[in-house]
């Protein structure tokens, strides 16, 4: 009886173990591994479509190439380089030499910021008026009169 039970147990264990292998793919490289690299590439023939979502037959073949290269142990950089050599650098989602892409906007923004801060300095008027022209004085007098009137008014209403 014990023997039968242990055989049944063994069978169950083996069955369970092989069943767990069916749960999602654990075999390397997984679709996720392929997608991780395909995300960074664009389909060489379609317009502006990333390689992981492109539905065409050709894209399917290219994703298989990625899978094959991963199986061979190639690194992400090597795979991207392979695609660039084969199909041109336009399949990469950033230019391989990105300094120009960042440099130009960086310079323009810097110039803009400099212009703005120069502007701030030029326009800055100190709180206390240093130069008092005739017009300013007349204004000041007007304001004083107005203030006096306000004070009188308030006193009355109290």
């Amino acid at each position: 009886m014990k023997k039968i039970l242990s055989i049944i147990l063994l069978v169950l264990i083996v069955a369970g173990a092989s069943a767990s292998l069916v749960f999602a793919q654990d075999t390397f490289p997984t679709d996720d591994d392929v997608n991780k690299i395909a995300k960074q590439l664009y389909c060489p023939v379609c317009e502006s479509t990333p390689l992981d979502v492109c539905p065409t037959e050709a894209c399917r073949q290219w994703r298989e190439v990625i899978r094959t290269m991963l199986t061979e142990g190639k690194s992400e950089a090597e795979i991207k380089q392979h695609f660039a050599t084969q199909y041109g650098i336009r399949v990469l989602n950033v230019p391989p030499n990105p300094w120009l892409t960042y440099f130009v906007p960086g310079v323009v923004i810097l110039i803009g910021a400099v212009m703005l801060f120069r502007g701030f300095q030029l326009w800055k008027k100190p709180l206390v008026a240093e130069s008092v022209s005739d017009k300013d004085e007349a204004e000041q007098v007007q304001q004083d009169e107005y203030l006096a009137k306000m004070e009188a008014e308030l006193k009355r209403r109290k």
Partner: protein
Amino acid sequence: MTEEYTPQRRGVPLWAQIIVWVFLVALLVIVAMGLRRAQQGTVQPGQKIDNFTLTLFSGYEYKGKTEVTMEELRGNIVVINFWASWCKPCEQEAAELQQAWEIYGPTGEVVFIGADYVDTEPEARVYLKKFGITFPNGPDLATNISQYFRIKGVPETYFIDREGVLQYVQVGPFTSLGQFQSIIDPLINQ
């Protein structure tokens, strides 16, 4: 109260105007060039074809070499066929192309080369084997050659005469061997 503390009635200084106009004109020129390029079709007959190099698949060499250049082919009629394994219309003409190669290749005056456009080598080999293609074939690396010819799709075939001048462009597959011959025979007899 609309007084100004500094008179601001200056116009735009000359240096600023120059910069603005230069930038504007540059932008328009760039866009115009882009537009012209977008409207351009493929390379047209009459144009002299510059030198290019096509790397060849092993097993599909030209005279034992794994590379072939336009320069070394001068003096021959050159037929460049752009194709891909994922291209259904290419399959329609594949058999005829191979037949044509078997007729014209041995004359020594015509060279066929196949440029595989944006493809994968294993699939390309399957395609070549399926149609028994034997003329020199290789991947158009970085799509340099197809960009030069400004192909709009595959298949396209370009006929270049002995002086290296493009004579005929076939967009789409050939309908028959006869059509192919009618294009190439006049070039040979020139």
